[in-house]
């Protein structure tokens, strides 16, 4: 049997994993395994690592996510971030006018804000797990970081009215991301996720993605690749209009949200990248039953797992109230799906099939 890291690597390389890999995206949710809230451990590397280790043992999934949120970088740049139980939020954007941009400087990951907290968490996780599982921090993509420095709607307007200033801001955010990514790499991260919710196809157009997202994310991905680490490109919402662009940026894993049909994504980009996802984190993972989740995951596996290059997971970060039974149902669906030598899938059992209930089916 493969260990977690070997299983993910096989999926990324489109070779044969022993069974479908699974990463439910239990980021803040993992903290609850030891009874912590995000706010209570935000500056405590030891508690964060302990909770992630306990969650890994409980869920038995294939990756451990370091960090708690995507506000670390913008907080270092000077925005004021507050955490309400588990949701960090910017309560004051550091720049009110784009011309104030010159007042900002690229943070030092060794000393500034929560960057040292997360990199220390990575070290602790790497020390505990070695190369048995994937240690992967979540970080903020450049466009989303820019929105946390200036305001999301203000930024979108500026993309039309003052594009040259937006590019200058994006350059600073990318430099910030590069410094943070290098520190995470030095701390031992196997992979790094760039979270880019603002670049969702639900919000911006493919042309905007091409101009304001792709070139900047690519610089982050290039850095990870140069150091032999795996960059992961995550965009929330409907990304089908930009899927081809996302696949061309050098990140071998695209982590996709629930609006995408994984079969369609597999057809579009599955030959070149590994796709991960994409069960609805709220309507299913938070509110559905374990049986419903198990069978919905099997539907997704059926759409996209054959041929390797697939990781089962939620479409986005799980809510901290997500029931443990639901996460375990997702993991079980992956464990029940083994790869044959021809990289087709065989379901070895129906763990969540009550004898008196027909398996539920859901629209894609």
């Amino acid at each position: 049997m493969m260990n977690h890291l070997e299983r993910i690597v096989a999926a990324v390389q489109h070779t044969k994993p022993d069974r479908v890999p699974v990463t439910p995206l239990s980021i803040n949710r993992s903290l609850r395994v030891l009874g912590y809230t995000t706010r209570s451990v935000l500056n405590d590397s030891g508690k964060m690592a302990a909770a992630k280790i306990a969650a890994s043992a409980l869920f038995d999934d294939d990756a451990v996510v370091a960090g708690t949120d995507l506000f670390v970088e913008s907080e270092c740049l000077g925005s004021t971030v507050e955490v309400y139980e588990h949701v960090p939020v910017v309560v004051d954007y550091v720049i009110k006018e784009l011309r104030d941009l010159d007042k900002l400087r690229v943070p030092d990951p060794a000393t500034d804000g929560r960057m040292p907290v997360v990199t220390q968490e990575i070290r602790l996780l790497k020390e505990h797990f070695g190369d048995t599982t994937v240690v992967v921090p979540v970080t903020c993509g450049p466009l989303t970081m820019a929105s946390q420095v200036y305001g999301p709607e203000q930024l979108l307007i500026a993309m039309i009215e003052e594009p040259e200033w937006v590019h200058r801001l994006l350059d600073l955010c990318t430099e910030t991301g590069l410094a943070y990514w290098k520190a995470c790499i030095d701390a031992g991260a196997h992979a790094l996720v760039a979270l880019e919710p603002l670049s969702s196809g639900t919000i911006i157009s493919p042309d905007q993605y091409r101009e304001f997202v792709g070139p900047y994310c690519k610089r982050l991905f290039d850095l990870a690749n140069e150091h032999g680490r795996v960059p992961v490109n995550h965009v929330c919402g409907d990304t089908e209009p930009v899927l081809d662009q996302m696949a061309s940026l050098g990140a071998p894993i695209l982590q996709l949200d629930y609006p995408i049909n994984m079969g369609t994504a597999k057809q579009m980009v599955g030959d070149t990248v590994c796709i991960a996802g994409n069960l609805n984190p709220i309507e299913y993972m938070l509110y559905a039953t374990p049986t419903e989740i198990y069978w919905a995951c099997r539907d997704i596996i059926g759409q996209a797992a054959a041929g390797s290059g697939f990781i089962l997971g939620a479409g986005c970060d799980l809510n901290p109230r997500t029931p443990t039974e639901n996460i375990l149902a997702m993991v079980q669906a992956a464990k029940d799906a083994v790869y044959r030598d021809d990289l087709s899938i065989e379901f070895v059992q129906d763990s969540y099939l009550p004898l008196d209930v027909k398996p539920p089916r859901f629209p894609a």
Partner: protein
Amino acid sequence: MSSLRASLRRRLAVVVEGGRESASYVGSGGQPSVGAGSFPPILVVGGFLGSGKTTFLLGFAHWLTDRGRRIGILVNEAGAVDVDGVVLAAEGHRVQELFGGCACCSLVGDLRPAVEALRDWGAELLLVEPSGMADLARLAGLLGSRVAVVAIVDVPRLGVIARAAPRLVGAGVARADLVLLNKMDIASDDDRNAAGRWLDEVAPDCPRREVSADTGVPDQVWEEVLRLLD
């Protein structure tokens, strides 16, 4: 029944002990059932930053106050109602904040508990003002069947906004039950005509009304909004 078949019926028991979770397999059992529950009628007020949705929401809240309605207000931007929220609370309403800049991901998971809290407080009607970045269709879907959406359109700035976030703004208006073309007091004829053409394209069947929230919304528009919740 074979032992294999029995094993297929296994279920998980999750135990929380001393704040720490653990899990073990147990025999088959019933499935948990989690539903949206029953909520009071909900009005979602959507619109881009600066469109006037907070002004509209506060105006509607005051109009309802004058008619003796007990309302709950849910906002998801820090400081969105600010002092006005205090005023509303003093008038007997409850204002609850739901934080987060982007209403995707885990934030929407907190939506139902927040609405349930306002329902349990005794709200007859709920007014929800999401962030301008919210996916209105998804939010409305999570809130059950007694939901109406009013989209506020900033007519003078629509040309820029529709280019800045084309899919977001277009999808929000397409989900709306009523579109309010706001700031008509300062809109030019060109602005009005351009807004009309844009709406003909993205939401041709949605009723639309011209207003100026700053200078006062006519009673018949408030009444029309209220009828959406019947």
